[in-house]
């Protein structure tokens, strides 16, 4: 899943909570935000692998923080380029990728799947980290457009393309359907993920709300601040779910 600033599929997150999904393992590409906090608070999540979980300017992700402090979820701490590199390894069909930096970090002590080796192409001492390929079961995000050929347009959010290339299955909600085939449009093609990688798409108008899509609708800062405040307590979080997830009212339309 992408973080709050990179086309999150919030409508699907709400649907997963309503379906009482259990034991999800979330991967942050490379970090997570409100989507993860909602799923964790609704007890849908067993494990989180991410470089961070935060609500950005709205502060800590309260349900993640409490679940982590109480030991209710397993956390595999990562660092952003390790996630990107691990997905790129899957994208290329190779077992691992080397990555500079990281060597002095305690992250290594908690990641027995990461290995430090000497650069095999250099006879001098040159330690380097190897991170194993990550192949997510499912990639899930929201796109501005889908077309009749099954392509989706994510613009500059190319980490979503890498994610889709690496994942076994990719499910995408979209804001608007375009007719025809965007691959035939030279201006749109560089922002596409081709249908080769897409398992299924579904229309979800304002599907990222209360998060945003650049130039379509902005992040609803007031709502995010309200969530951050409400979710500080379990009771406040439950009330938030009652109002915006469990109720059938059209919660994703503009106020």
């Amino acid at each position, binding site marked *: 899943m992408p973080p709050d600033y990179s086309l999150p599929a919030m409508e699907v997150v709400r649907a997963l909570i309503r379906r009482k999904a259990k034991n999800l393992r979330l991967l942050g590409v490379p970090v997570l935000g409100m989507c993860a906090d909602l799923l964790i608070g609704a007890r849908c999540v067993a494990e989180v692998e991410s470089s961070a979980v935060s609500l950005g*300017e709205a502060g800590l992700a309260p349900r*993640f923080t409490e679940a982590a402090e109480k030991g209710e979820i397993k956390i595999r701490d990562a*660092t*952003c380029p390790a996630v*990107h590199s691990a997905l790129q390894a899957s994208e290329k069909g190779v077992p691992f990728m080397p990555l500079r930096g990281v060597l002095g*970090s*305690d992250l290594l002590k908690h990641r027995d799947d990461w290995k430090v080796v000497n650069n095999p192409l250099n006879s001098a001492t040159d330690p380097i980290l190897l991170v194993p390929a990550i192949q997510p079961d499912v990639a899930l995000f929201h796109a501005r457009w889908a077309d009749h050929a099954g392509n989706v347009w994510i613009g500059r959010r190319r980490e979503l393309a890498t994610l889709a290339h690496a994942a076994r299955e990719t499910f995408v909600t979209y804001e608007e359907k375009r007719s025809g085939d965007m691959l035939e449009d030279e201006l749109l093609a560089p922002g596409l993920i081709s249908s080769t990688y897409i398992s299924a798409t579904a229309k979800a108008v304002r599907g990222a709300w209360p998060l945003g899509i650049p130039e379509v609708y*902005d992040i609803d800062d007031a709502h995010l601040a309200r969530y951050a405040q409400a979710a500080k307590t379990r009771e406040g979080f439950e009330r938030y779910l009652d109002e915006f997830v469990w109720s059938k009212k059209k919660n994703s339309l503009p106020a």
Partner: protein
Amino acid sequence: MRHVAVGAASPIPATGALLAQQKNPSLRISRLHRRRGNPFSEGSRELFDLAGQGRIDVFFLGGAQIDGEASINLVRAEGRRFPGSFGSAYLYPVVPRTILFREEHSKRVLVPKVEFVSARGDPAALLTGKALFAWQKDKRRFRLESVHPGHSAAEVRENTGFGYDADGVAETPSPSKDDLLLLRGAVAREIARDYPEFARRVWS
């Protein structure tokens, strides 16, 4: 210094970088998480690829804890969980000039030893709400460089949990009239787009 990158949740470094750019328009600033006009076209890995090649000269890192060895902790302390390490474990050792910053200057934050090393490296400096420290790479120890107006060297010592050297401590120069005009004008307007809450708190 040609290319300054500013990470997530960093309104103060972003403000400083934009002020520097007002005075040196050839300075390239890449601010992550801009709501519009994000500086990258290759997705969020591009910053790390740039840094890996040496194309980022300056980066800023904060910490829930920062210790006397210049290690930072973004993961957990005293039973509390923080968001996580973000890209710090990679960027700190890879970027040539990493500036550590934290507005809160207290023994809670500036500790002898962090509980979890998110990242370690050799910083260019450590800047807090009270003071500026230089890093002595050979001794692996901070040196108090200057104290901000309204604070004293004794107060800094009192509120710092790690040992550091201090001789000939100066007062941090206040921003000039021209700098203040830039900060409250062009810089404030730009910052408000990405950090509306911060801009309201500081400038309104």
